């Protein structure tokens, strides 16, 4: 029996003269290392603070913030599927005002970079959230969650229409000079198109992937497992889809790509980095092992040492094709 020392800093004390540079640049922002925790899986940084050293993370991508408070979708909101997790949380969050008042100060007090995930039903919603946070002193950056259904365009998600992606990116771009990441939906025919749209509209980076649309049915109860019927699929099951998306997107845009979807281990993260990602996020894995992101970070650093790779950005050049 032994307490897991989840707070051990990556790298360790051995003196290896070779010290890889783990930092990653996203527009105006420098992340100390490439491993962040994904939006919606880490709250606003408080809950997991007892289980790992959040200061050691590359970044915290917060749960989505919307203008108004949202209670979220009816329950049940979760269903496990083979190597995957379906969720229909529905952007449950305290809303801009409460976020700025109650959550932001604690986030700022952490040494870790904070990127606020922003959502809304209209372009104006996104702009208002970013303006509200900017007015209160800002954070390190924003990640636009453009995968939620958009009332104005008939329930289709923003993220599936390149013109809407461009519009929301452009509008938010005018509201902030900070790092601006657009999070791409995989539920599209060609993710390179939405990536292009984000790049052209001024995004500093794109992240991919958000969840895949999925459904599970309780055969005994003859009911969808989720109250909302369909939900978003995450976890190891989607990793091949995420890696393919990052491979495609990184060859379509020049801005950095942040890869995520099913990363459980350093090996998984390295798949994304080799495929073309500049940074990664760990989501569902944190539920399984609270310190997953830090283990991933340690493993990436160890691999870079072993393979004498100087900078994270060099990893993508190592893929033999």
């Amino acid at each position: 029996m032994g307490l897991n020392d989840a707070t051990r800093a990556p790298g360790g004390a051995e003196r290896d003269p070779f010290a890889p540079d783990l930092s990653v640049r996203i527009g105006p922002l420098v992340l100390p290392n490439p491993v962040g925790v994904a939006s919606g899986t880490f709250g606003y940084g408080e809950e997991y603070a007892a289980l790992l050293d959040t200061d050691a993370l590359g970044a915290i991508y917060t749960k989505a913030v919307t203008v108004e408070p949202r209670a979220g979708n009816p329950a049940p909101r979760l269903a496990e599927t083979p190597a995957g997790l379906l969720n229909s949380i529905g952007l449950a969050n305290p809303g801009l005002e409460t976020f700025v008042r109650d959550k932001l100060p604690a986030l700022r007090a952490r040494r870790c970079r904070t990127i606020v995930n922003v959502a809304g039903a209209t372009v104006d919603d996104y702009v208002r959230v970013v303006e509200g946070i900017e007015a209160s002193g800002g954070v390190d950056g924003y990640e636009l969650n453009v995968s939620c259904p958009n009332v104005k365009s008939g329930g289709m998600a923003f993220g599936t229409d390149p013109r809407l992606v461009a519009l929301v990116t452009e509008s938010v771009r005018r509201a902030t000079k900070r790092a601006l990441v657009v999070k791409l939906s995989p539920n599209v025919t060609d993710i390179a198109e939405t990536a292009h749209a984000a790049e052209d509209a001024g995004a500093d980076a794109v992240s991919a992937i958000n969840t895949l649309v999925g459904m599970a049915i309780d055969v005994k109860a003859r009911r969808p497992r989720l109250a909302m019927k369909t939900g978003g699929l995450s976890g190891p099951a989607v990793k091949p889809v995420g890696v393919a998306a990052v491979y495609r997107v990184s060859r379509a845009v020049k801005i950095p790509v942040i890869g995520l979807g099913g990363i459980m281990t350093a090996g998984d993260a390295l798949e994304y980095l080799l495929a073309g990602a500049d940074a990664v996020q760990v989501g569902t894995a944190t539920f399984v092992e609270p310190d997953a992101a830090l283990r991933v970070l340690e493993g990436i650093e160890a691999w870079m040492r072993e393979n004498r790779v100087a900078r994270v950005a060099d990893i993508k050049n190592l893929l033999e094709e």
Partner: protein
Amino acid sequence: MVRIDTELLSNRRVAEGYFELRFRWPAAGRPAPGQFLTVRAREGSDPLLRRPFAFASHDGTRDEATIVIQERGSATRALATLEAEAKLDLLGPLGHGFAFPERGTEPVLVAGGIGVGPMLFLRAALEAAGTKSRFVLGARTAALVPEALLPRGAGVEVRTDDGSLGAKGTAADAVTALLPEARAALYACGPAPLMAALDRIATERGWPYQAAVEEWMACGVGACMGCAVPLKSGGFLRACADGPVLDGRLVKWD
């Protein structure tokens, strides 16, 4: 809250498909009745998520604790077959436990099916504090009653749907049979219909009602908003971080 790789000390079958797992548990993580832990049933992605189980006992002097589990799916099946000395990846104690009864109220503990674990723990804790309690266990049939675990002494009743052990009927029936003017404090863990029935009784009679709820969980620590428990007033509470013990009269049970 601690995350530990600990050791299974014993695993015994206590009813049909029910198992009691006893394991080392550190003093640093002293659990209260009603609190739970999450376990990673095995390496790999099947099952993927940690699974929540309520503490069923804790022995602070020997640094041991137990859970009682029912075989339902892949995780519980894997746990049921573990043998002593197996490693267990545990995280806990999580959530909020039961509050002790107010002076002058008589605690009535109601366990439905596999809800028995946390109620056993609460019974023991009350007893240790010198507080007497009634204990009602409802089960479908005798084979599903973990007799070896049942508290000894007065005030312990069993109800089975088929009358194969104890009186025929539900645990809620046993509670209904209490005098309406008693100053009971209800504590319960069990399936939704039982919890709803107790809600009706508690609301009618003005009894306090502490309910340990169950919901699908992903994180178990309050971060994912997945374990939403709907309230009658609208809105939700998180089973893991706001509960699992909630005021049963506020919860929307259906």
